[in-house]
């Protein structure tokens, strides 16, 4: 049986992080982009918890993760509200088309 070590967690978290970034830069839909951000945050969460567990660093990591989860929710709420507003004004949520402000 494979022993699940820190490396595995880190591996997963890096993949999640990269996927998050990938999603952010490739998806057209603003909501999908926001989901990418959530992925990134969760990648960090995995890190925190994994480090806390394997490093015997106490509870700080877990606490951090909890905070991040809460913040992620708040951020998602705000972001979705903004996307909603964008949909009202631009009639689209395609981030490519929202480029009126530029040089």
């Amino acid at each position, binding site marked *: 049986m494979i022993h699940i070590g820190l490396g595995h967690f*880190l591996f997963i*978290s890096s993949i999640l*992080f990269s996927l*998050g*970034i990938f999603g*952010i830069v490739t998806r057209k839909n*603003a909501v999908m*982009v*926001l989901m*990418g*951000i959530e992925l*990134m*945050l969760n*990648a*960090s*969460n995995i*890190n*925190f918890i*994994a*480090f806390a567990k394997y*490093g*015997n*660093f*106490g*509870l*700080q*990591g877990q*606490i*951090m993760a909890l*905070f*991040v989860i809460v*913040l992620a929710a*708040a*951020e998602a709420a*705000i*972001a979705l*509200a*903004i*996307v909603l*507003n*964008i949909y*009202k*004004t*631009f009639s689209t949520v395609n*981030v490519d088309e*929202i*480029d*009126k*402000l*530029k*040089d």
Partner: protein
Amino acid sequence: MNIDYLINSLYLIKPEIAISATLVLLVLMDLIMGNNKKLLPYIAFGGLIVTSFFIVEQFGMSSLAFATKANKGMVVTDPFGAFFKAIVVFASFIVVYLSIKSDEIKASFERHGEYYTLIFGMILGMFFMISASDLILIYLSLELVSLSSYVLAGFTKTSKRNSEASLKYVIYGGVSSGIMLFGISILYGITGSTNLYEINSLIQASSIPNLTFVLAGVLIFVGIGYKISAAPFHFWTPDVYEGAPISITAFLSVASKAAGFALLIRFIKITFIRSVDSEGYWHLVDMIDWKTFFIFLSIITMTLGNFAALWQDNLKRMLAYSSIAHAGYLLLGMAVLSNQGMIAIIIYFTIYAFMNLGAFFVVMLIANKIGSEDIDDYKGLGYSQPFLGVSLAIFLVSLTGLPPTAGFVGKLYLFIALVDAKMITLAVIALLNSVVSLYYYIRVLKNLFLTRPEKGIFEFNVSFSNGFVMVLLAAPVIIFGIYFTPIIDLAKSSMQILGF
């Protein structure tokens, strides 16, 4: 950890508490007063005044709050923090005033409660950014500022510009803070602590894999760099500054940046320091070459800001780029990695607050009347509005850094720091940059005074209160340019960071 200690710690965060209280009061008043929202800004003023008293008190203090067994302390109370808080509060005063006068904000009168609440949310976040000494609190405060500002940037929901700005801001900010968080997690993983002081002692004690460290450091810097809009993390700045309401842009450009710099200085100085020598130079642990990093960053930041600003037709957007350029100058102070550099930053910020807020104030007053921020629409304004024209001229000249305005003093001290550190080449680059910056600032002056209005002269009177605030902003720019002992004294007394 006993309860007494906790209560004692609360004494140390009086400004934050005052801000929180005001925030709550604003929400309550908004609910109670109903349609009478005119009172809200005055409540805000009141809260700010109380806060400023507490901040003044903090100039003499130096202690850590909320220490636990596992944590040396979450919040630092020291003169350094107090100074930046003062800058934030000062900016808040002006921004609240701007908000009262802004037509943009007036348009969505019914949501004023949210507006001021969110501003105070931002202030609270900034305060914690400034005084945080724990990565968790750093992240949380950063997010608090960000989340509030996302909403504020898109405050007037009906405006396309505002909506777009807030969307870009939220995505960009989300990603940046995500990256930063990842960096924090790695740093936590390597050191096993989130407290900056502990991390510092751990780093000094042991050798830690180099590349990982660099990775963590740089990733964390992404978050800070995004706040202070340092290149190459600045891309949001022009778009958001242009799109957001002017009062918010002003707030972002001064307060948010101040908080970001405070965070940056504290983070670097506490986490990576090994010792400070008698000359005031910081000797950092040599895991990351921060010096080269900051040199590199400051050069590209100021160059990019200045050169891109050359092309702008929108004054707000131009000021956005100009604020990027100024971030570059400020980073010079970081690159020196010395107390002197820090003092230079503090001096610069004091002056920057006046001149930048002033410039935005003028832009707002004019935008209120002519509904445009286009530089070409400023033609001949100096004749129809000599007061505003001259004020804007003073601010812009100061931003360029010409004597006898205070902007010169700010630059002078930066260059003094650079020359003292024998970084002549960097100083030359910075000076040439300031020559380039003349191009775009002078273009505004040219339109103001050298060209005749195309669309006919528009007459309006500057009200007494506006005039008063304008003088309040403009006079120091001149006075500090001629007699700058006070700000240097201020800077000197503000450079003290807890722990050193």
